[in-house]
């Protein structure tokens, strides 16, 4: 059986207590939420924190407050709770869909929203046991010098594999980061770097405490996920799309975000821009699909062939936008996602 390395265990009861621990321990301490990302990484010795700080006992992190004008989601709300909560509909549909498509029902019962937003980037050369990584003399992301995905690269090319981040970026979410001395709000779209190693701007002494959403009145959103099987698998490409329409169906505002196509979620600005002021018709959807696919640059470090993943980008953008305009794409959705949920 694979065993965890030894660690010290802390269980603060409040955010204040937690940030004090992080401040004192430095980067060798890591917050533990659902554990579904960190513990496998520890068993594979990808991450070996000296101290594990459980967030499970901090009540503040488990709250969901939803009002007409804005919502605040505690970072430790589980993905299963989000997927099951009827309040996550209409404008928030993309989030509920993304949460419902993460891994498996068991993992969704454990994994948290904050954990999924902070999910370590993934790569077929990195998400391996210690012994395997030894056989390739390790890699740039951990213990080695070379990025085997692109051996000339100075940058780690591990893939952002979170489902909820693309969805929440499409919904314009912000996150609240708390440390001992300060508190800041960051637009989720700006939380990530396009660097598989240094992929997140959360500092080691900060806790991602809350996700903040403004009113999504008038918005519609959707999330499409590509993976080999109907469950378990991380996305190897995803598309989140959100749009606000006039009564006549003209797009007033739109956001398209692609996941798992780089080391961070990619915001397809041009694609979204081209939709504004136009109805979602065949022409505008096709243009947006081409523009979005242009920036997706999948690499050979996940499941499926990279050029094929890129090809699916356009198809998924098309399906997502057709869904937003009200087409029945449930057949395509069921075919790709193999599940009736949402």
């Amino acid at each position, binding site marked *: *059986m*694979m*065993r965890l*390395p*030894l660690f010290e265990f802390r269980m603060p009861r409040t955010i204040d207590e937690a940030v004090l621990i992080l401040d004192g321990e430095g980067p060798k301490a890591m917050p533990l939420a659902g554990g579904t990302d960190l513990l496998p990484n520890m068993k594979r010795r990808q991450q070996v924190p000296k101290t594990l700080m459980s967030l499970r006992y901090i009540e503040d992190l488990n709250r969901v407050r939803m009002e007409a004008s804005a919502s605040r989601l505690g970072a430790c709300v589980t993905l299963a709770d989000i997927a099951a909560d009827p309040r996550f509909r209409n404008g928030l549909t993309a989030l509920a869909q993304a949460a419902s498509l993460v891994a498996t029902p068991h993992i969704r019962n454990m994994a948290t929203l904050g954990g999924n937003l902070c999910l370590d980037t993934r790569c*077929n050369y990195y*998400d*391996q*046991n210690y*012994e*395997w990584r*030894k*056989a*390739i*003399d390790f890699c740039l992301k951990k213990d080695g010098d*070379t990025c*085997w995905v692109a*051996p000339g690269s100075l940058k780690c090319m591990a893939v952002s594999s979170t489902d909820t981040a693309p969805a929440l970026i499409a919904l314009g979410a912000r996150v609240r980061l708390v440390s001992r001395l300060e508190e800041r709000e960051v637009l989720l779209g700006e939380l990530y770097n396009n660097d598989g190693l240094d992929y997140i701007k959360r500092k080691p002494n900060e806790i991602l405490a809350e996700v903040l959403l403004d009113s999504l009145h008038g918005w519609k959103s959707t999330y499409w996920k590509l993976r*080999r*099987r*109907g*469950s*378990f*698998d*991380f996305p190897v490409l995803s598309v989140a799309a959100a749009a606000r329409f006039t009564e006549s169906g003209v797009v007033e505002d739109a956001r398209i975000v692609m996941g798992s196509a780089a080391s961070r979620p990619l915001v397809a600005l041009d694609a979204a821009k081209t939709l504004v002021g136009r109805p979602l018709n065949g022409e505008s959807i096709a243009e947006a699909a081409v523009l979005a696919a242009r920036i997706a640059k999948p690499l050979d470090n996940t*499941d*499926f*062939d990279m050029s*094929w993943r890129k*090809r*699916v980008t356009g*198809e998924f953008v098309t399906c997502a936008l057709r869904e937003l305009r009200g087409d029945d794409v449930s057949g*395509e959705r069921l*075919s*790709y996602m*193999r*599940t009736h949920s949402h």
Partner: protein
Amino acid sequence: MRVIGVPRRRVDARAKVTGQTRFADDIFLPRMAYCKLLRSPHPHARIRKMDTSRAAAHNGVYLVLSGKDLPIEYGILPVSQDEQALCVDHVRHVGDPVAAVVAREELTAFEALDLIDVEYELLTTIADPEEALATPAPRIHEYGEEGNIHKRVSLEFGDVEQGFAEADEVFEDTFFYQGNTHLPIEQHASMAIKDPEGKLTIWSSTQTPHYLHRALAKVLQMPPGHIRVIATPNGGGFGGKSDPFNHEIVVAKAALLLDRPVKICLTREEVFYCHRGRHPVLMKFKTGVKKDGTITGMHLQTLIDGGAYGSYGVASTFYTGALQTVTYHVPRYKFQGCRTFTNKPPCGPKRGHGTVQPRFGQEVQLDKIAEKLSIDPADLRLRIAESSNAVTANFFRLSVVNLSECIRRVVKNSDWKEKFRKMPDGRGVGLACSAYLTGAGLPIYWNKMPHSGVHIKFDRGGGVAVFCGATEIGQGSDDVLAGIVAEVLGLETFDIRLYTGDTDLGPVDLGSYSSRVTIMAGNAALQAAERGREMIAEAAAEKLGVPKERLRFADKRVFDSAAPEKCLTFAQAVCNAEARFGTIGTMGSYTPPKSPALYKGGGVGPSPTYSYTAAVVEVAVNPATGWITVPKIWIAHDIGRALNPTLVRGQVEGSVYMGLGEALMEEQEFRRLPKKLSHALVHKFPSMLEYKSPTSLDMPEVITELIEEPDPRGPFGAKEVGQGPLLPIMPAVANAVYDALGVRIDEVPITPEKIMKALAEKKAGRTPRFGPNHFPKVNWPEALRVPPPWEGGDGNAVNDVPRAAKHNPEKEKVLSP
């Protein structure tokens, strides 16, 4: 019949649903220590130096072993004794074990692995068979045909060129079948102890306790009588636990040295390194047919990626050519197979052993033939299906053959005639068939002893205990034994106690492989039970004053069929018999009938009887992305008789499941890093997450139909079901994709990327297919020429010494340890 043929709860079901089934890793013993193996990080290297002193000195470590502690070579086949429990000086794939640490805690053992210093000298690596053919040195093994060729075979049954000359059309196709693995959910585990008397006992998740027993005796140089192997129920096997494994030998040695229990449970990654899974095979089929579809001749060539060790590979090589003749009538047949060594975990037997890959090629080629000849593929197969009691060109004697009925049923159930070539674009159906062995006709090592033995003990209280070496791997072998014995003795399966998979307690059964347990252990149980019944009946007849022939055994009673009130309870009847004859215990054994295939290589493929299957698969493919889904599968299986229909259906559906995984997503893939920068050649993703096994959301509805016509060779007429139904799935998917989009995917797995590439070919006006285009040159040996029965052949090759006259010193040497 009260038990046989009745759907019922299997005998071991309660243990399984309560979590009480004791798998190997569920055994915990006082003072036990944990073992971990240090594995080679290099695909091919010499071990220059090893220093284990730092690990041995580590707090909590009891013992460190290295290759010199266990130098004797072993392997499943007598002709391939090429493994060492811990490599002495040569590592052949990433994951080859070089040292073992035994410690109080598993974590300690794991961490101490890093304290072992090994110096390697790197050797050229070989990643696939074409490289192996082109790279005779360095040799991965010092034995085999030459260079890195492990085994080459060439057999010809009739003049195949003559067959092509008589054909109206000759088809040539090349196919590739990617390797894949068993992925049992239970990781391999073993626990060994030096028992209180000082002998060795090992509990292990093995499908073949008898072969493990032999390997342990050989490597540990102990009398076999001082070794007890207990096969724990396997948490899935599928062929992956059929070899004797290095970790089993290591814990046995450690337990003997430490005089304390030593356990090992492999990580999932290590299970991928044990492998012994499906061989990647490149195939070339050349088939001649008449206008009506009659086959005039077939020439099959296979190039097989064996991985780093022999394993069952010699048998696998023959299997890639053995069963082509068993489904359809092939009057002239030539087979050439070549297995190479490569620096990857060894391939071996996975469900359908060696026959799955050429079955894919043959069934897809038949689909192409049917289209060219404008014959419905189902009708074509009905025309050429083999018939009962035939002897094939390669001298396999068939028994009951119900392939045609299987085809007719799936055609009807799937509404084939309304769907084939009639569905809208992107939707399609495909049909394929198969045959499989009901038990290998020959044992792994040459001997004249039975393949299975059963001992039944009758208790004065009416209890019946069955002892047999057969191994429960989930397939229901315990239930087969209990069902047969209960039926014969008029008891319920609950009345039968089973002692199986234990080399100390039961007579030898060769193991749970080649779909042999139902027919072999089953027939042995039948014989033992009937002998017991005979004794009990004789004594009861005397006691009741009734002619023996009139006695019936049912409802736990022995009674006069003419006057049922004249009876003894079963327990009374046993006591009565014991008083008459002394203690009642009976034996049964089974040896398969002699095969007429006397030529060299004819030992692989004969079976007492063969099962047959036909399947129709429906697919939906998105032409924009190649995304493929399978909404429904219809399958019919020629089972002879279903001893327990619930379990038989489970085997069929489980086979369909595994076949669908192979068809669509399962791949044992390797990655070589840029050669300038690295020597690495690693498994691409040795994990449950990235090795894609279908989930509950990926599995379509399966409509199963069992065709029952009892086979005189099977116990109560039963044939195999555990492997055969897997075989038609992959080609049926490929044929359905063609029906849906008009593109051929001549390769497994069939993925969206490959479909898109084939569609691109189609769009460009080229051959609408994806698949291999060439078969490399192999220096084939001169073929052994065996005239088929209809050309007056006697089963011997005309250009070889007849089998009976031959003396084989090598085999005899292996027999005496």
